[in-house]
């Protein structure tokens, strides 16, 4: 059997690995989105007390300052000592928390790019702070965030492959299995895998760009 037959035969495994990568990606981005937005809102509009702000800052610094591969090891081996966590669970948690740190930054600068006059005008009309954020500031900040968020999406797709090191059977690990079983052919197999990552990346990017265009406000430059 030459490598092409093997690839053809084992292609379903690659697709399965791709599926795992996509689930991991979606899960970590969702955790990152919800937590990141929450952190950003507390940082910008929450109590100024150090008791609240310092832990958030510390969290952000740590998760942005430590290599993801170390985080994966810490979360998997560290947590599995006290609590039975699957490799996939550890990857979602470590990468989701890390993405939250990055996404909070994306959202923070998007919110800060909305001119202060917008909030002022909303408050002057009688909107509460929460209503003003929800109806006036967030819709504008959200539009500004899509571009940088697309970057985060792209880097996270690529980073899902690192979950390989703690044994998550995602696309890269599936590729590795094929390589071990056929002894060699590294280049061909990884070329196919690279293509799969690339397609996923392009597809996601196109979707996000389309979303950005759909929400664009006529005459309104950033």
């Amino acid at each position, binding site marked *: 059997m030459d490598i092409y037959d093997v690839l053809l035969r084992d292609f379903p495994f690659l697709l399965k690995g791709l599926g795992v990568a996509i689930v991991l990606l979606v899960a970590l981005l969702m955790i990152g989105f919800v937590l990141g937005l929450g952190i950003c809102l507390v940082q910008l509009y929450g109590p100024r007390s150090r008791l609240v702000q310092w832990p958030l800052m510390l969290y952000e610094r740590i998760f942005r300052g430590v290599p993801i591969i170390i985080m994966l090891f810490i979360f998997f081996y560290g947590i599995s000592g006290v609590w039975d966590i699957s490799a996939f669970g550890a990857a979602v948690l470590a990468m989701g928390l890390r993405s939250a740190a990055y996404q909070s930054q994306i959202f923070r600068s998007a919110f800060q790019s909305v001119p202060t006059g917008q909030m*002022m*005008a909303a408050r*002057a*009309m009688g909107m509460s702070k929460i*209503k003003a954020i929800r109806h*006036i500031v967030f819709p*504008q900040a959200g539009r500004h965030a899509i571009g940088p968020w697309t970057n985060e999406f792209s880097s996270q797709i690529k980073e899902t492959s690192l979950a390989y090191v703690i044994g998550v059977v995602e696309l890269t690990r599936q590729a590795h299995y094929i390589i071990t079983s056929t002894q060699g052919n590294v280049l061909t197999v990884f070329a196919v895998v690279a293509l799969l990552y690339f397609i996923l990346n392009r597809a996601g990017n196109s979707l996000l760009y389309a979303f950005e265009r759909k929400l664009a*406000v006529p*005459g309104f430059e950033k």
Partner: protein
Amino acid sequence: MADDLILDVQDIKKAYDGLEVLKGIGFGLRKGETKVLIGPSGSGKSTLLRCINYLTVPDAGRIYLNGDEVLDTNIDAMRARMGFVFQDFNLFSHLTVLDNVRICQVKVKGTDKAVATQRAHRELERVGLSDKADAYPAELSGGQQQRVSIARALAMDPDVLLFDEPTSALDPELTGEVVRVMQQLAAEGMTMVVVTHEMSFARQAADEIIFMENGHIIEQGPPEAMFTESTHERTRAFLNVIAEHG
């Protein structure tokens, strides 16, 4: 407190890090009155206007709107009853003109959307912008944006409108269209406090002009008296400067 006053501003004081900007300012407005606030740059006009709706919280003093005191605790409800028109418009840039004029009716007052839409169209007609309902703010001229922001304030059916230099960010040729709208409002009996250097507006539409300097009211009176027979050297000097530089 005189109870026929729509807006009653009493002894407002405000300091920024020790710099006293307002040193005890009071004045009142009856229904349908227009008062124009003038004074040199830095005299505290904007600060005073922003203290009235607590965009800046005063250090001391009281504000009554139609007999109700403005407080931290009721501020959103009180602001809904006071329109504020900013120098740089501050239209909600992600919303169409129609939505700009409609959103606060719906989200603040809980007005039914169909009713709010009708009202929005009526106010846009009033400022001469019916045909721009579907445009976005960035597609409008400054003068048009300012007229939309006036319509946005009017749609809340406010007891009083506060204007902070509504024409200062506009090219001279666009000033006229905004001033005309304001004159029309004054004539229709809107109650307004206007900070402006447009002396033609002050002369024509103001019931009273208030001259401020250094955080004090130096002098106040009907426009004719202020322009022709002001007894205060400072007022006369200021009005002369304004007259020369427009």
